[in-house]
């Protein structure tokens, strides 16, 4: 039976390959930092279960130390020249889109297939296993038709991942922080505090506090991912899910989207709001935010309403 272990091996080998190619990249002054970062991640994927809890903790500390001291990065460049891409796109365009669609199609089909035919793969992890299979199929089909140099996918993949940098493990770090919050009982404490602010027994008040909290925290931090573990610990888990028995999938999914409404309204999310204004040479650096507020506010109201309607 295929388990998540198969996916971790695949991910571990991918990161190990990125690390090996990274260390060979003499043009990059930060090549050792990059290689160490992806190498440690490869170790985590391949051998995390053998490291023990404290060993994994030390591995995380090492990752944080490498990222926190600015040891990872890369100079720009290394992509295929635009003229070559344009010429290839003219020849292969529709095929490229087809290959790209293989991944979500297999992920979705596998999710249902593995539930329908139990015993082939761990049904609890059907989506992630199917995603990995989809990646392998897409890569195989793409390589067979395009016949690129053998290492081209790995080199280009590494280039993309190096551009993401330490942010690649941000969601995993925030999920882990959520677990520490849960262990320390943060939710209970905030829940008690918020409980005094929300009228006793008011379900709608609690939903409102959760939705607005996601938006406001996101606006302050510029990042809905960071707001999520905080607001879930504070309001989502103790009140909406535990006390009022709300559907956790709805609370989480639509709560996150309420946070995205906050992303549309804050200069702290510079990549989305300030960089494009500069790129388009707008006179008002907040012009993009101004154009978004009128969509973000009504959509926030809709999200709060949706949680209230669908979760309970």
């Amino acid at each position: 039976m295929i388990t998540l272990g198969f996916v971790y091996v695949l991910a571990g080998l991918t990161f190990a390959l990125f690390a090996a190619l990274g260390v060979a990249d003499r043009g990059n002054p930060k090549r050792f930092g990059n290689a160490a970062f992806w190498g440690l991640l490869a170790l985590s994927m391949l051998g995390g279960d053998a490291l023990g809890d404290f060993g994994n903790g030390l591995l995380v500390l090492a990752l944080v130390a490498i990222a926190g001291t600015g040891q990872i990065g890369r100079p720009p460049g290394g992509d295929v020249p635009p003229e070559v891409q344009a010429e290839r796109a003219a020849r292969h365009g529709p095929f490229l889109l087809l290959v790209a669609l293989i991944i979500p199609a297999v992920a979705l089909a596998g999710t249902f297939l593995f539930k329908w035919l139990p015993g082939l793969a761990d049904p609890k992890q059907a989506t992630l296993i199917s995603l990995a299979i989809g990646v392998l199929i897409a890569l195989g089909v793409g390589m067979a038709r395009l016949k690129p140099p053998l290492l081209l996918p790995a080199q280009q993949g590494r280039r993309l991942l190096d551009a993401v940098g330490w942010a690649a493990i941000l969601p995993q770090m925030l999920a882990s922080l959520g677990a520490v919050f849960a262990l320390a009982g943060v939710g209970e404490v905030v829940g008690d505090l918020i409980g005094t602010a929300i009228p006793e027994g008011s379900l709608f008040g609690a939903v409102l506090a959760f939705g607005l909290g996601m938006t406001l925290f996101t606006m302050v931090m510029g990042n809905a991912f960071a707001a999520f573990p905080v607001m879930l610990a504070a309001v989502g888990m103790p009140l909406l899910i535990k006390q009022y028995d709300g559907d956790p999938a709805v609370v989480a999914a639509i709560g996150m989207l309420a946070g995205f409404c906050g992303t549309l309204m804050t200069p702290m999310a510079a990549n989305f709001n300030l960089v494009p204004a500069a790129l388009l040479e707008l006179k008002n650096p907040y012009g993009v935010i101004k154009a978004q507020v009128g969509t973000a506010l009504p959509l926030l109201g809709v999200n709060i309403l949706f949680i209230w309607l669908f979760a309970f």
Partner: protein
Amino acid sequence: MLVLIGILIIIAGFVLRFNPLLVIMASALATGLAAGLDIAAIIAAFGKAFNDTRYVSIIWIVLPVIGLLEAYGLQQHARSLIGRIRSGAVGGLLIGYLLIRQIFAALGLTSVAGHPQTVRPLVAPMAEAAAEAQNPALTIAQREEVKAYSAATDNIGLFFGEDIFLAIGSILLMKGVLDGYGYQIEPLHFSLWAIPTAIAAFVIHSFRLWRLDKRMRAPAERGA
């Protein structure tokens, strides 16, 4: 009460733009200490959680495929598809782009479009040209507005499309955090619950783009 220090550290750290990984680690250590755990126990607890949530970071295995396809011109192909939106009207053009952006993002193809890839070279100039054709006396302020709406449409299409894809970072983050509380939920459930909001975002923003279109047709009365 003391355990709330972790939340304060997260907020202050992100606002002050420290490296987020450092901020998260500091928050975890402070929270654990405030709850009476010793350092070794906190490191072990964080290490266990990190190991248990490794699936959150497996999305990066798609990068070799994306890298291969982009080297062979996937972005150019996406651009030529967007360039084929046949609408003389600025509203229709941006509504078409919104739809394409949402669909691409929902299929996990978040990087085939974006501000440097499509908005600056393609969508903003096309929108500006359409507005100009509608109203030859377009003011500078109106041009700015059309360009700002082009960027806004890209953001909205991305944000409210990507969460429909089964294995995007935010979905796996939700799965990871809820796992920490003992709730095991399939990514598909989060994906499905992103669809109502995706539709609402399309409707609301399309309405605003239609209003923009009408504003661009009216002769400019104010402004420079």
